[in-house]
């Protein structure tokens, strides 16, 4: 260490700074750049799916409207659902995770930086893949859960469903790689002293979510694999005529799909648990209870999938079991809500935009939770299944549970990402517009649903009592869209004119606030030492960091280095040499795109070529790097 004592921080600058240019742009492995890409791409998908929703709402605004016909309507609501769930909610949270998890745990990158770049490219490629059929009227059109037999080749010929099946298989590669990366990063790369019971609650949430993905996603992938074998190659899994069973699809889908609701919801909850204490100016009440509730929700989420299927006729006893699990899961959510309320009551809450969005979340989510508890009653569920009541319910849960927290996070963390503050006035205005617009758009759907309006209809006759509710809904949707537009305006203004944020505009307690905004490529000039769950509120420790940086203690300036620690106690264990920019992740993603295009279009030669090139790219990826030759970690 003594050898590098002169100007270690300059050495950090020169070894971590990435050169400009197109090649670096494609080859970057910096978790912050990748995180921003995730955020921008996922937000773009949000806008696309939002425009689709507006078209749906215009079509439904008045009875017998003729804006879009049934064929296009089916594609639009399917794409809207698929995009919101798979291409917006999960990747958006992955974007925040990518940018902030390493910062919050005091690391210099994700555990596998190239795998991280690879996850992003696959996310982008599979998103484009899913949309590729739209110009040819061949986009997925059987709803986001794609039930067979409707989705079988017999009833939906053409490529529509194949874009869905292969697209989601393709996306699963990205999501799985991302989840594994998060888990290993969180288990192994925490700053020394950050034992598992000092981890920020957002990190707990990302950890739980990632584990849930590792075990839930294979069910969706299997479902899609079987579906494509059946559609493309004449296998039989779902058709009763040849010994199959259509319900198999439903089970496989919801074994994934229900945990997925929590996969979306838990990081959002982690965001709330991060923001509430900062704006209450006190540590969260019941840290341990909140962390355990997070984990418990993730586990219980696997026990409730059947509640999506109460209407299909299953044995009573198993329905009873799953109804009980559906009620049980309300308990850990309740614990978290009480912890937030107690924190707010015992602190001195400052009503700035991020906290407003959090409060909006709590209100909306409680309404969604109430209608959710109603579904746990089997007879009620059987009455209103597939009506607009359900559409209202899951938008309260998903919009409330994911979109409001995501916008809270945007207002909270953007200053760290760009270095500039957002306008409070615009922020508050956009919140109120979104909140009012949201309720106006979705509350009337409860009513039209109870009055019998089914979901997924492209139009309806006048005189059924649904007209007013539908018109209100459409007006609300536009108010909501205007609110979102205001946020975009705010971000654009802030990028150009926003006042400088400084390192710590909110007085945050976690480590991302200990470093400049935007952070330097190496994140931390010196490995921070952590002694509590609120490291940035421990002034003495942070001053100690600064002193050590000056004395080149634990600066780790030999190339891309970061510290590995032990899994539970977070004790310093090893110095890792992280890879630098590499084109292989991008190349591998391209070759896999060729593979999936070949599978989609029934071109076995193309698919094989893609597969072989992918193996070649993998080999190239793992060729030894020059700096490995004298290291322990050579591949």
């Amino acid at each position: 260490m003594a050898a590098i004592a002169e100007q270690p921080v300059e050495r950090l600058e020169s070894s971590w700074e990435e050169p400009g240019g197109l090649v670096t742009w494609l080859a970057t492995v910096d978790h912050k750049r990748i995180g921003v890409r995730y955020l921008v791409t996922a937000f773009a998908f949000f806008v696309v799916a939002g425009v689709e929703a507006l078209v749906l709402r215009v079509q439904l605004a008045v009875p017998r409207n003729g804006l879009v016909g049934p064929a296009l309507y089916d594609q639009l609501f399917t794409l809207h659902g698929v995009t919101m769930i798979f291409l917006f909610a999960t990747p958006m949270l992955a974007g925040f995770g990518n940018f902030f998890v390493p910062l919050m745990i005091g690391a210099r990158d994700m555990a596998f930086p190239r795998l991280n770049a690879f996850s992003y490219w696959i996310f982008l490629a599979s998103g484009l893949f899913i949309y590729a059929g739209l110009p040819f009227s061949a986009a997925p059109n059987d709803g986001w859960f794609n039930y067979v037999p409707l989705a079988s080749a017999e009833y939906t010929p053409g490529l529509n469903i194949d874009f869905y099946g292969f697209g989601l298989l393709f996306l699963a590669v990205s999501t799985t790689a991302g989840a594994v990366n998060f888990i290993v990063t969180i288990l192994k790369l925490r700053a020394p002293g950050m034992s598992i019971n000092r981890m920020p609650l957002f990190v707990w949430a990302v950890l739980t979510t990632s584990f849930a993905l590792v075990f839930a996603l294979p069910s969706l992938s299997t479902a899609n694999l079987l579906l494509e074998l059946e559609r493309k190659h004449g296998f039989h899994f779902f058709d009763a005529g040849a010994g199959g069973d259509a319900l198999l699809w439903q089970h496989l889908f919801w074994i994934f799909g229900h945990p997925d609701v929590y996969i979306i919801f838990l990081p959002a909850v982690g965001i709330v648990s991060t923001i509430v204490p900062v704006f209450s100016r006190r540590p969260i009440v019941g840290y341990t209870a909140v962390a355990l509730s997070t984990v418990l929700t993730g586990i219980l989420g696997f026990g409730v999938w059947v509640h999506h299927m109460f209407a299909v006729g299953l044995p009573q006893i198993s329905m009873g079991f799953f109804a009980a699990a559906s009620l049980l899961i309300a308990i850990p959510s309740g614990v978290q809500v009480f912890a937030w309320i107690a924190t707010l009551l015992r602190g001195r809450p400052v009503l700035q935009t991020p906290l407003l969005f959090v409060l909006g979340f709590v209100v909306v989510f409680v309404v969604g939770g109430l209608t959710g508890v109603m579904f746990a009653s089997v007879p009620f569920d059987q009455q209103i299944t597939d009506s607009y009541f359900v559409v209202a319910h899951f938008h309260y849960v998903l919009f409330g549970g994911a979109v409001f927290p995501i916008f809270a996070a945007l207002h909270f963390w953007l200053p760290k990402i760009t270095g500039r503050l957002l306008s409070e006035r615009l922020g508050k205005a956009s919140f109120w517009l979104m909140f009012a617009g949201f309720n106006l758009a979705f509350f009337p759907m409860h009513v039209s649903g109870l009055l019998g309006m089914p979901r997924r209809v492209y139009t309806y006759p006048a005189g059924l009592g649904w007209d007013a509710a539908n018109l209100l809904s459409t007006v609300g949707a536009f108010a909501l869209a205007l609110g979102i537009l205001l946020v975009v305006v705010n971000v654009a203004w802030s990028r150009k004119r926003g006042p400088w944020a400084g390192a710590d505009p909110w007085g945050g307690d976690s480590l991302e606030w200990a470093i400049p905004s935007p952070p330097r490529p190496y994140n931390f000039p010196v490995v921070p030492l952590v002694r509590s769950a609120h490291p940035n509120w421990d002034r003495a420790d942070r001053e100690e960091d600064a002193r050590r940086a000056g004395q080149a203690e634990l600066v780790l300036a030999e190339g891309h280095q970061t510290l590995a620690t032990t899994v539970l106690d977070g004790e310093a264990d090893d110095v890792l040499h992280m890879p630098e920019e590499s084109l292989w992740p991008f190349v591998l993603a391209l070759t896999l795109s060729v593979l999936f295009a070949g599978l989609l279009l029934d071109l076995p030669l193309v698919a094989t070529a893609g597969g072989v090139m992918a193996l070649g790219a993998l080999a190239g990826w793992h060729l030894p790097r020059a700096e490995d030759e004298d290291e322990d970690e050579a591949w």
Partner: protein
Amino acid sequence: MVSSPVLSVPRSASTAWWGMLLLVATEAALFAVLIASYFYLRFHADGGWPPEGIGDPKLVRASLMTSVLLASSVPMALAEAGIARGDRRRLRAGLAASFGLGALFLGLQALEYREQLRELRPQTDAYGSLVYTITGAHAAHVALGLALLAWLQLRAWLGAYGPRRHVAVQVIALYWHFVTLASTVVFATVYLSPRV
């Protein structure tokens, strides 16, 4: 205090090992879902299992295949233990033996398919689809494993691994053991369960 952790030998498993463990976990979940689908369709089937006109799966070759693949874990473990002590020859020999047994497994699998296809095709019915999907998924994992073993062998010849630098060996060994163990579950499901 921790000013030169570089010098100490790490106490806990490497990031790569954790990464592979999680990959194996998600692959195990994939096989679990495939096998659950098998039993789901079996218990909802109206007729017999296997359906009328299709004989019970034959055990002799399949037991041999499973034993061969399981056995291939032993040289893999020896190879890993060898390189941990710096014995490069043992590493190469162990890798070669595992590769040979794995290739033998794939050869037997091909023979097995040739015979099975005479009375049962994946398109015949749900039973056939399940049998070929499950064994096919497993065989694909073996094939990928063989490619990884070949890679290790190549790098081993180039002298890439030593007592303190053989993470790749550890990680691929973990994958290989998973694939060999999975073959017992596949065997129990596809070959044994129809008889009970």
